[in-house]
Every structure is written in structure tokens, then in C-alpha cells.
């Protein structure tokens, strides 16, 4: 109904003020009254329900039945021996407690991760613009919307500037709607036509605007729909899916073997109850029901570790994919470089560097502010670089303005490629011009040699141009500085200027990026630079970082457009730098790399980057400078926008995959060991080498802990010296199945050897005790063997 009201009515109704917003007290009151601005989560299960659910497992039910049968037999034969029965129940309960604890731990890790990647909103409160968590927005808040934002609540617009919003999540319509705050609509207008409103979860794709929050949380339009669709389950990763399949197959195979063992036992005239208990124990021992749980624990703890290192995983399957990344396509500015221009070189014909900086710093629109006890410039990056370079030499723009007050200016425009400021200098005026050297030099007739103004000859112009070119070749952004003295501050003309010097700036590489690129190369990962910047700048930085090497090529977006996709796919591995590319080109680049079988990680920050992020095997959004849309489309968010963090995440991804593989290797091979022990014992006509409760203890208690330990192993020191995993190869590739069977059989046969030795020399009880101890120790030794690919006496992790 807010779409039928005028702006002032909405303002009155919500007792808010469009220019200052709400104050702290009002926010607090409304928070208490309306609650948090979030959709209701799926109802959380209590610890008790979680505990009860642990018993909802086929094998556990069999165990409970076995316990009941054991108790009934004890009662019927009058022995009163309920020990087996009690032990089985105790082990089942212990297993359930461990399950609840592990699940809670995994859940907590994922919750914490959700918290980190929670969306934010820009609001005006107490006259100040603040960025807050979207869930803290309250009705009456003034929200500022920008391109790339998610709308945090239902909002009546009060100001728009070409504001276009995509409302597909509500209306199904993907064409963005142009909004207008001044329209007052009829009551019955459908949502898609409410152009003076924006709704929670819709996306701002263009322009900007402001509005008053009218509804939050479950009262929003999307909240009302969400009532029907609340789903909060994390998606299963490929490993989890694969393990569920493997578990099922192994489970059925084990049940068949157990039934076979039971029948063989009956033929061998072993008491049916004893045989039944042994078969049940073996079934529980053999079925790797703990596998999916261990993978979940390893993944959830792994992503928490990664979050601490600034890589926030949004989609769990990304962890596995990360480990297999073979191409990383990275944005240049802000990810490979610092996004902070720095003055690195100056050139003049006699004028001192301080003089160049003094004039240049005056000819800027930068604000100088104190940060701690240091002065810093705030404004456009190129101008900030000049002002900061001047401040480092104690040339303070504010002090200079006190002496030479700025009285007029001609702002920069992209056609003139120059800007001019005019300053009062005692009795006369000085106009200072800075701009592109090629343009500015044409406006100069003299140069300053440090003492006097000298006529600019063609020789000198050539010298200046040569130095300008040298700086440009080094990918420096070059600004020329000139001045002239004038008698009048009005009608300034940018001509007859006196050339003073050139200032060369660069956005330097981020610390550690060069080393990270080298690590990638060793790890068989190709690093690709993608930038909207000029090709010369891109090439120079790429060369410096080791991305563009001897036989690598660089290409512009324009050239890319002329290459057919099939040719691009053929030659794609030759390219390492893509300059002047649009977000649309990124999709082509991703697809071309993928056509070679590569697993591609792609960074992005803008709304238009979303298709590329979704198409990449791992979409990586920038946490600091990325839009909400990009973050939502990505699999991973970089909290510090740093390339080094991507490489660290790949390292962690590889380690997590390897560790999961080790845990699986351990669990299945030890289960096979247990089957072989019992099965071969029966086949060889021996007494049962292990009793049901002994098997249960080994499987439910002693198996899972080493498996978890293997899953949480620290990163192997050689992990980045290996080539990426072949994405086509499965979890059990490279002979893992045969290793599992061979090693499992070895464990089983050695346990049987221990039993036979004890049984023959000292009797069956000693034999079983020796088999019990040997099996436990064999599993421990096996765990150490799996832990490292190197000799356990050499292995060292980092």
C-alpha cells in the first residue's frame, strides 16, 4: 500500500527524516519491535532430536535388534549373561553421542561461515552513511542503493537516478524495471508495475537511488513467498555423492558376505546365536557408514580454516574443485596490483622534483585529511598519488593553498585531457595545468629550467617526448605539469604554457603476488591476467609478475572479438594477458579454457561479471570491492581481494581433497581387514578370531578417530609442487581401489596370524586378545603409512 502514498506521507508514517535517517534510539526500539530483517531459518533441530536421529540408521537398528536377541537368549537359557547386550547398547549410545558432537561441530563451522558472508546494506542514520548487515535494517531506515546491490528490504523510493532493478526473484521477469519515485500508484497495481517501490532480494542493475524501508524480514513480499520455500540444506559435494553411492554398494556386498558367513557357520555347526552375533558385528564393522560423516566434518572444518585465511567458501563443492584448478584468471587492478597509484619517476629539464610536485599537488581536487598522526590524500587515485608523493616531501597542499589561494579552475574532461586551477600569488595569479603529455606539450611555448623560463625548441620537445615514451613503455601513467602567470583570474586559456616536468605513476603489484604466481607455475597452474586497462600497462605488469613469459601472448578485447570461438579454443593456452576486455569477453575466455579440459577459477566484482563467475568452475568474487550480485554468483569470496589468497585457497583445497582421500583409504581398507579376518577364519575352519563386541568396539570407536585425524592433517609441504588433479579422474583413481584391497587383505591376514599364533600356543582367549590388540595396532600403523607418501621417517608437514 506504500506505493499509493506520497513521499512525505511515508516519511511521516515512519517518523523518519529523509536527510538524516533514524537515530540510534529509534533503531533500537524498532529492532525490538520488528525483529531482525531476515527470512525465518528452517527450524533448528534440538540436541535431543539430533541424538534420536542417530538411531535412524539401518545398521544401528540391526545392532539394537541383535542386542535384544542376545538378551532374550540369555534370559531363555537361564545364563543371565547380559554383558553382550549391554555392551552393544553402550557402544551404540557412545556412537550416537560422537555423531551428535561431530555434527554440531560441522554445523557450527558452516553457521560461522554464513555469518561472514552475510549481505550488507548502506543506510543513513544520524546524518551519517553507514554500511551495516542487511539483517540490521529496520522499517523507517533510509537505504542507499547502488548498482550491484541486493535490495535489503521492501522500500518506498524517495530519490532515483536512472535506477533499474531486476525483479525476477519476485515476478519472474528478467528485464530490469526503470524506477521512478515521483509516481503515486493505484492500490491494485501488480508488483511488477510498482515503479515507486523496490523489493527485498531484487537486484539493482543500474543507476542509484534512496528510499524508506517499509517492510522487513518475513513481512516483505519475498518473505511471504519464502514461507513456502524455506530450505536451508547445504548442497552435497561430488565426493559426498560418490561416497553415498560407494557406501550403498559396499553395504550390500557386506550384507551378502555376512549372510554367507552365517550360513557357512551353521554348516560348521557353530551355535546359531553366536554366528548371528558375529555376522551382525561383522556387518557393522564392514559397512563404512561413517564415511559421509567424516567427509562432512573434514570439509566443514577445512572451510573454517580457509575463512580464517580470507577465502570464504560460499558453496561447499567449490572446495573440491579448488584443489583441481589449473587456470586462474585474475583481474589486474586491486587483485594483482594494489589499486593505489604511486609516483615512481619524474622528469624535467632542470626543474627540481619538489617544484613539479608543488605545482601538481595544487592542481588537484584531493582532500587532505589527518589519519592518526599522518596526512593522507582522499580522492581520485592518480591525484591522490601526486598529493601523497608531495606530502612525503613535506609539501602540503593545504599550506600551499593558504599562501596561494585557489580562485578559479577548469575541471578535467576527457576531450581536453587536462585540468587547470588558478591561484592568487601576491599581486598576480598563477594558473597551473596538468594533463596528458601529448596534449599538454602542444600547449606549451616555454619550459622552466629551474631558474628561468626558456623558449621550447623542437630539440627539447623531442627530448621530452622520448622520456615520455620511455616512461610509457614501463607502463607508467604519465602526467605533464605546466604553469603560466596571468594577471586576471577569469577567462583563463590553456595555451602559452611553461612546461615544468613529467610525473610517472604506476599501480604497483601487491606484495607476494610475484611469488604466488611462481608457486602457481610450479603447481602446474596457469595464471592469466584479465583487465580493462591498456595492453601496454597490462603487459608490463604481467611481465614483472612473471605472468607474461617468453612465449606467452597478450591480446586486446577488440582483437579477441575477431577470433572465432573454435580458433580461440585451439590457441587459448598461448594467451596469458587479456587487456581492454569487457565482462562479456570473460565468458568466452572461460569457455575457451574449459574446452581444453582445464578447471578454471575466475575473479570478478561487477554485476556484469556474474555470467563469467557462474560459468567458471570456481567463481571468485571480491569481498571489498565486489558487488552483492557478484558475491552471490561466486563460489568463493576473497575477503582481502588478494591474488595471494586465491593461491592459498587452492593449496587448502588440494590438501582437503588429499586428506579426504586418505581418510577414505583408511576407513575402507580397515573395514576390509576386519571382513578378511572373520571370513578367512571361518574358511580355514578356525574359531571366530574376534567376538561381536570386540569388532564393534574396534569399528565404532577406534576406527573413526584416526580417520578424522587423517582428514585434518596439516598441508603437505609438497602440495604445490604437484600438477593439478585431473578433473576427469575419480576419487578412487590411480589404483586406490587395488591399494585398499591389498592393504585391507594384509591387515586381515596379519590379524588372523596373531589369532592363530595365540590360539595354537595359548588357547582361544589369548588368541582373540592378540588378534584384538594386533588389529588395533595394525590400523594405527596403517594410519601412519597413509599419512604420508614419503617414508614416515622422512615425512614432515608444514
Amino acid at each position, binding site marked *: 500500500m506504500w506505493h499509493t502514498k506520497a513521499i512525505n506521507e511515508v516519511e511521516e508514517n515512519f517518523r523518519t527524516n529523509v536527510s538524516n535517517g533514524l537515530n540510534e534510539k529509534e533503531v533500537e526500539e524498532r529492532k525490538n519491535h520488528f525483529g531482525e530483517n531476515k527470512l525465518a531459518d528452517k527450524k533448528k533441530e534440538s540436541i535431543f532430536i539430533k541424538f534420536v536421529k542417530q538411531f535412524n540408521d539401518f545398521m544401528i537398528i540391526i545392532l539394537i535388534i541383535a542386542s535384544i536377541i542376545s538378551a532374550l537368549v540369555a534370559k531363555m537359557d537361564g545364563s543371565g549373561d547380559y554383558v553382550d547386550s549391554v555392551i552393544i547398547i553402550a557402544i551404540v549410545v557412545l556412537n550416537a553421542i560422537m555423531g551428535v558432537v561431530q555434527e554440531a561441530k560441522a554445523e557450527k563451522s558452516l553457521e560461522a561461515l554464513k555469518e561472514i558472508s552475510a549481505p550488507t546494506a548502506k543506510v543513513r542514520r544520524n546524518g551519517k552513511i553507514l554500511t551495516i548487515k542487511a539483517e540490521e535494517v529496520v522499517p523507517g531506515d533510509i537505504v542507499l542503493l547502488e548498482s550491484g546491490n541486493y535490495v535489503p528490504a521492501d522500500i518506498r523510493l524517495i530519490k532515483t537516478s536512472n535506477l533499474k532493478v531486476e525483479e525476477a526473484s519476485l515476478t519472474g521477469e528478467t528485464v530490469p524495471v526503470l524506477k521512478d519515485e515521483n509516481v503515486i500508484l493505484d492500490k491494485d497495481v501488480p508488483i511488477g508495475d510498482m515503479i515507486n517501490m523496490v523489493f527485498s532480494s531484487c537486484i539493482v542493475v543500474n543507476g542509484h537511488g534512496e528510499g524508506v524501508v517499509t517492510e522487513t524480514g518475513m513481512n516483505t513480499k519475498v518473505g511471504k513467498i519464502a514461507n513456502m520455500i524455506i530450505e536451508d540444506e547445504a548442497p552435497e559435494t561430488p565426493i559426498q555423492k560418490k561416497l553415498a553411492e560407494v557406501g550403498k554398494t559396499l553395504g550390500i556386498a557386506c550384507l551378502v558376505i555376512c549372510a554367507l558367513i552365517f550360513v557357512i557357520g551353521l554348516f560348521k555347526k557353530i551355535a546359531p546365536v553366536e554366528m548371528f552375533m558375529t555376522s551382525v558385528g561383522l556387518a557393522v564393522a564392514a559397512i563404512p557408514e561413517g564415511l559421509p560423516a567424516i567427509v562432512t566434518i573434514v570439509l566443514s572444518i577445512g572451510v573454517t580454516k580457509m575463512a580464517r585465511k580470507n577465502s570464504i567458501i560460499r558453496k561447499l563443492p567449490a572446495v573440491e574443485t579448488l584443489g583441481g584448478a589449473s587456470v586462474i584468471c585474475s583481474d589486474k587492478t586491486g587483485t594483482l596490483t594494489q589499486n593505489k597509484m604511486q609516483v615512481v619517476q619524474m622528469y624535467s629539464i632542470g626543474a627540481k622534483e619538489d617544484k613539479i610536485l608543488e605545482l601538481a599537488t595544487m592542481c588537484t581536487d584531493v582532500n587532505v585529511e589527518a589519519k592518526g598522526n599522518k596526512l593522507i590524500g582522499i580522492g581520485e587515485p592518480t591525484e591522490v598519488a601526486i598529493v601523497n608523493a608531495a606530502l612525503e616531501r613535506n609539501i602540503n597542499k593545504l599550506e600551499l593553498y593558504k599562501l596561494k589561494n585557489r580562485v578559479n579552475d577548469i575541471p578535467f574532461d576527457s576531450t581536453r585531457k587536462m585540468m587547470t586551477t588558478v591561484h592568487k600569488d601576491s599581486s598576480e595569479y598563477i594558473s597551473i595545468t596538468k594533463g596528458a603529455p601529448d596534449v599538454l606539450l602542444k600547449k606549451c611555448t616555454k619550459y622552466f629550467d629551474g631558474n628561468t623560463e626558456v623558449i621550447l625548441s623542437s630539440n627539447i620537445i623531442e627530448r621530452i617526448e622520448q622520456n615520455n615514451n620511455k616512461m610509457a613503455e614501463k607502463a607508467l601513467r604519465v602526467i605533464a605539469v605546466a604553469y603560466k602567470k596571468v594577471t586576471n583570474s577569469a577567462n583563463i586559456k590553456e595555451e602559452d604554457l611553461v612546461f615544468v616536468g613529467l610525473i610517472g605513476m604506476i599501480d604497483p603489484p601487491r606484495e607476494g603476488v610475484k611469488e604466488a604466481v611462481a608457486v602457481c607455475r610450479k603447481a602446474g597452474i596457469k595464471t592469466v591476467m584479465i583487465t580493462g586497462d591498456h595492453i601496454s600497462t597490462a603487459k608490463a605488469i604481467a611481465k614483472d609478475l612473471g605472468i607474461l613469459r617468453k612465449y606467452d601472448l597478450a591480446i586486446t578485447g577488440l582483437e579477441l572479438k575477431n577470433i572465432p570461438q573454435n580458433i580461440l579454443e585451439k590457441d587459448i593456452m598461448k594467451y596469458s594477458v587479456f587487456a581492454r576486455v569487457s565482462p562479456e569477453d570473460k565468458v568466452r575466455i572461460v569457455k575457451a579454457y574449459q574446452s581444453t579440459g582445464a578447471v578454471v577459477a575466475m575473479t570478478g566484482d561487477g554485476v556484469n561479471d556474474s555470467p563469467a563467475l557462474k560459468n567458471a568452475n570456481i567463481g571468485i568474487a571480491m569481498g571489498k570491492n565486489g558487488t552483492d550480485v557478484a558475491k552471490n554468483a561466486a563460489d568463493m569470496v576473497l575477503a582481502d581481494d588478494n591474488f595471494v589468497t586465491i593461491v592459498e585457497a587452492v593449496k587448502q583445497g588440494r590438501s582437503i581433497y588429499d586428506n579426504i582421500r586418505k581418510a577414505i583409504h583408511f576407513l575402507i581398507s580397515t573395514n576390509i581387514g576386519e571382513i578378511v579376518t572373520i571370513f578367512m577364519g571361518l574358511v580355514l575352519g578356525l574359531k571366530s578370531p574376534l567376538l561381536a563386541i570386540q569388532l564393534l568396539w574396534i569399528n565404532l570407536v577406534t576406527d573413526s578417530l584416526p580417520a578424522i585425524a587423517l582428514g585434518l592433517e596439516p598441508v603437505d609441504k609438497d602440495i604445490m609442487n604437484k600438477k593439478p588433479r585431473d578433473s576427469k579422474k575419480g576419487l578412487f583413481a590411480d*589404483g586406490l581401489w587395488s591399494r585398499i584391497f591389498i592393504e585391507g587383505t594384509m591387515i586381515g591376514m596379519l590379524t588372523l596370524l596373531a589369532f592363530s599364533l595365540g590360539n595354537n600356543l595359548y588357547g582361544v582367549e589369548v588368541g582373540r586378545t592378540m588378534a584384538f590388540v594386533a588389529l588395533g595396532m595394525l590400523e594405527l600403523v596403517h594410519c601412519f603409512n597413509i599419512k604420508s607418501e614419503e617414508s*614416515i621417517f622422512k615425512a614432515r608437514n608444514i
Partner: protein
Amino acid sequence: MQVTVVIIPQIADIFKLVPLNKIQWLYTIIISFIPLIIMEIQKKINEIKFGKVVYKQEYQ
């Protein structure tokens, strides 16, 4: 954990285990460490044969 179950008599009774003497422990320990020797030999052979160890092959 496994050893604890054996050496604490009350728990051992529950699991129908008996105390082992030194010789029996020695037999058990020797048998338990056989895989260590076999795996170490296999790792060495792999290192000589491939220059790298088993897992690393998949990344070549």
C-alpha cells in the same frame, strides 16, 4: 584406546579379553609392525622407480 581395553582388567573382562604376557605382547607387536616394513620397502621402490611416490603419480 585399544591397549587400554586390554590392560585394565575390569574393561578387559567386559570385552572377554585376557592379560597378555611379555612374549605374547612381543609377538603381537612384531606382527603389527610388519606392514610398516612392507610399506617402507614399497615407498622406496616407488621412489627409485618413478622418482616420486605413489600419490604423486596422479599429478604428473
